């Protein structure tokens, strides 16, 4: 199954998701020696998901630094080093453990520009890998919704190798803290990436599939679930427009609102909790622009995600659940 994007560039190279990240890192690290990497197994091991493969060999231990499992310290050091003039990327293997580093990330990283009247900023990229993949309640969470509303923090979540490459390049150029959210289940999936160095802008969603009956907004691994559901629904004559948000803060509500203006109905899909989730924000903002319309949210069931595969599958949204939600939203039988 392939995901189509609008405006495909001419020369493309197929690569794994991890290779796209490593490529973005390499290109930017060659140009800017202030960029360093901190994290577990980022050095000679090449990254927990091999997403920093080869960088240690090229840039050495001063710039690619293994850290102990100490997320509060890693983020504290990353944010402080950023304020002092470096441009660190802090790699947290599981998104769940950002919780340990929320204070330095939010209370210092996101706020330092405000606190110092612009004299200091913290250009740090905090890379987190979210998602359920058999590893249980403390290694499965998708909590990007917790971070979207933090003033001063940008949050992006690519769903393809091309977007992981482009968004990482943009993140490394940013003037403030960026949370970059991968997903464990995206790493096995290769995709085509532009051969020419290309940035993906923040605040710009991508329409993956044009449709006329309902707009489905989503991000990260759930884009694949949305596309699977759209294919299934098309067989029943229901036309879904699927939008990959890509950027959660800033959110591209213009693209979503324009789409919902055409389709008349909005379904939001996320792997995280629906309560106070990404979808809740999208719906509120779209309705602020367009007024009321039929809407529905699909998210994980309100339970921690078990390592038991049956329970995990029951908790995390799948194409079947999305199809049922669309049918209910559109009041089809």
């Amino acid at each position, binding site marked *: 199954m392939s995901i189509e994007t609008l405006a495909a560039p001419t020369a493309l190279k*197929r690569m794994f998701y991890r290779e796209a990240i490593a490529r973005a890192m390499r290109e930017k690290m060659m140009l800017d020696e202030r960029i360093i990497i901190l994290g577990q197994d980022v050095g000679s091991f090449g990254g927990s*998901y*091999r997403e920093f493969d080869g960088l240690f060999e090229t840039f050495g231990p001063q710039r690619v630094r293994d850290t102990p499992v100490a997320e509060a310290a890693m983020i504290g050091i990353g944010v402080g080093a950023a304020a002092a003039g470096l441009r660190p990327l802090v790699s947290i293997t599981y998104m769940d453990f950002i919780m340990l580093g929320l204070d330095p990330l939010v209370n210092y990283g996101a706020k330092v520009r405000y606190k110092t009247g612009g004299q200091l900023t913290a250009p740090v990229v905090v890379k987190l890998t979210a998602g359920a993949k058999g590893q249980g309640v403390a290694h499965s969470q998708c909590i990007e919704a917790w971070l979207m509303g933090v003033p001063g923090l940008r949050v992006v979540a690519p769903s393809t190798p091309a977007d992981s490459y482009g968004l990482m390049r943009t993140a490394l150029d940013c003037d403030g803290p960026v949370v970059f959210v991968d997903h464990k289940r995206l790493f*096995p999936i290769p995709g085509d990436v532009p051969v020419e160095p290309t940035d993906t802008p923040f605040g710009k969603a991508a329409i993956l599939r044009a449709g006329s009956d309902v707009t489905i907004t989503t991000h990260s691994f759930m884009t694949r679930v949305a596309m699977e559901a759209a294919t299934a629904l098309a067989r029943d004559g229901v036309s879904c427009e699927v939008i990959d948000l890509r950027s959660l803060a800033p959110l591209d509500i213009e693209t979503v609102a324009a789409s919902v203006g055409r389709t008349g109905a909005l379904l939001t899909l996320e792997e995280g909790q629906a309560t106070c989730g990404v979808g809740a924000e999208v719906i509120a903002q779209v309705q602020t622009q367009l007024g009321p319309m039929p809407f529905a949210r699909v998210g994980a069931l309100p339970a921690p995600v078990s390592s038991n595969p049956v329970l995990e599958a029951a908790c995390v949204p799948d194409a079947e659940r999305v199809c049922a939600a669309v049918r209910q939203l559109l009041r089809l039988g």
Partner: protein
Amino acid sequence: MIYKLSVPVVADDVEEFRVLEWHGVVGDKFEPDGLIVELETHKAVVEVRAGQKGLFRQIFVEDGAWCQINVPLALFSDEPDEALPEAAEGAYDLVVDFDVT
């Protein structure tokens, strides 16, 4: 006998992989434990080693190209003059070991 090589479902959600390097060309013979091809998944490099004798007859997926699981990568045979089938899928599976490096 004609044999095909395809990569079965292995761990880690591997659906698509890259062929890194064939260690033989059409006509080359191999013995048990000979290295046939190196593949790359999202996690690791995989050495495909022969579990039988044979020789290379036809390569469908070249070095650097991508392939899906369960799709034939190449055909092999016991003897050089055995006729190749129309459809590779019907051939027996080459006996191989997949060594994850």
